[in-house]
């Protein structure tokens, strides 16, 4: 959908549901939202095998990987997933976030979030009402990606 293209390089994102999660409305919604915000989104769909996610991220070197999961296995499955992803050299520094409904008993006191962050997610969005905070992250990543893409030598 190029209608949203505003010119210039668009940052790229991979979007996926983890292996056990079949929900797709969340994926469709996030795909539309991120596209409208100027991202080029590759939606890998629900029940994404880990090896497909690894292969796709090697192929397109995304600026961001978004895991969306609402079936309640997100916490448990999310831990296994991030460990596999961070083992790959090309994914070591890629921003990876997870969000949705992560447990089967509603958002917890935050210890789950901490474990997910410690395991390697750059950010965790558990429960409803997290989209505005996600948009802030998208904005800052986008500016970052644009700076990197510009020909001016980046001073780090």
């Amino acid at each position, binding site marked *: 959908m190029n209608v949203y293209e505003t010119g210039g390089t668009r940052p790229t994102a991979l979007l996926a549901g983890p292996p056990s999660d079949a929900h797709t409305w969340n994926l469709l919604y996030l795909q539309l939202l991120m596209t409208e915000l100027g991202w080029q989104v590759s*939606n890998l769909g629900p*029940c994404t095998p880990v090896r497909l996610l690894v292969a796709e991220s090697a192929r397109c070197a995304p600026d961001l990987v978004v895991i969306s999961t609402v079936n*309640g296995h997100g916490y*448990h499955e999310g831990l296994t997933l991030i460990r596999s992803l961070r083992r790959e050299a090309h994914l070591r520094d890629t921003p990876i976030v997870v969000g949705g409904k992560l*447990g089967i008993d509603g958002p917890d006191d935050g210890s789950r979030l901490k474990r997910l962050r410690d395991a390697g997610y750059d950010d965790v969005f558990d429960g409803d009402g997290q989209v505005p905070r996600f948009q802030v992250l998208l904005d800052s990543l986008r500016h970052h990606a644009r700076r990197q893409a510009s020909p001016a030598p980046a001073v780090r």
Partner: protein
Amino acid sequence: MATATGPSPAVGPSFHTFISDARRDRRLVVQPRMGFSDTGAMTAGLRATRAARATTVGTITVDSYTRTGELGAVERALRDGVALNGYPLASIDPGVTRTMLGEVGHPSFPVQVRHGSAAPTKIFEALLEAGLDATEGGPVSYCLPYSRRPLHLAVAEWAHCCRRLAARREDGANPHLESFGGCMLGQLCPPGLLIAITVLEALFFRQHGIRSVSVSFAQQTNHRQDLEGVQALRALCAELLTDVDWHVVVYAYMGVYPRTPRGAREILRAAARLAHGGGAARLIVKTTAEAHRIPTIGENVEALELAAAAAADVTPQAVPDSGIRDEARQLIHAVLSMDADVGRALVSAFARGYLDVPYCIHPDNHAATTTSMDADGWLRWADVGSLPLTPDAVSSPPLLTSAGLLRALSHVQRSYDGA
């Protein structure tokens, strides 16, 4: 494939007999969506379902690792003490499941397995070994919304599993299979297509030897449209399922649910009125926890009793015909004319876009259809894609932006929560 071992299961009154007895007395059968990874909780849940003040059927909802064949993950979770979103039927010793069923009074108390798997062989083997013979699914409705598996593979495996289940007839049982086709993605699908898919799946079950089926209809966003849908579904079953036992099951709203307890109860009451008023025999309920998390046993029991009470004082209602039945009939016949084998016809129909579920991103779905929603929740086609239908003359714009989509998805939540 392994063959079922263990003692031949007890043959009791069939799922069908239970439903038709209730139907004769004009009692709506109510059933939860319930599954726990802990066997103690699962047993307590089935027992509480049975004891509820309502005519109930028990449910074992299978967890999503098992649904997707991630049996290693089940093992890790059980070892780590992490609770799952359902009962890991294929990983629990069938003897344990059989004991649990005995304790809750199966088979006089019917219990159905609900599982959402496009590759269900292991689940069928486990349920048969545990002595169960009622389950749910379908080659299309458990594939497109639940997996990325190619449709033709799901069709082949579902055919095999239907025959496995049907073989229970040789032991004197009357195994039951419910189609999930009347739900699909749960929301934003005009009813004609849902009706067509569930009837086609029932015909697929029949072709593979099943003689007791149910067809489904998920409550949508406009009560009158839903009532017409349920009645259209019954009329088409009467036409097309002449040599099998069938009944209609209604699902309380399967989309984004009201967040307030009041809103959640109110839409469940509407679902009960839809089911009983539309002439369905059974209703699957949803709870006040739906929008938030997996419900507790208590929340399920409350929902069962609330729905049974709400259905009790409803009389059959007739509604004007807006053409849902004709639309569904047209789709069914277009698909059946593609091949004498229902499974092959279904695969061809999706390949040609004769069946095309709006907003479904499964690779075998064209995704050329879009929906629009009137202010009162009535669903229409914005774009019929290649469906063999004449496009709707009056139509509102399709839902194609994140905000528009979210608005339509939360129409029910907004109206019932009164925000």
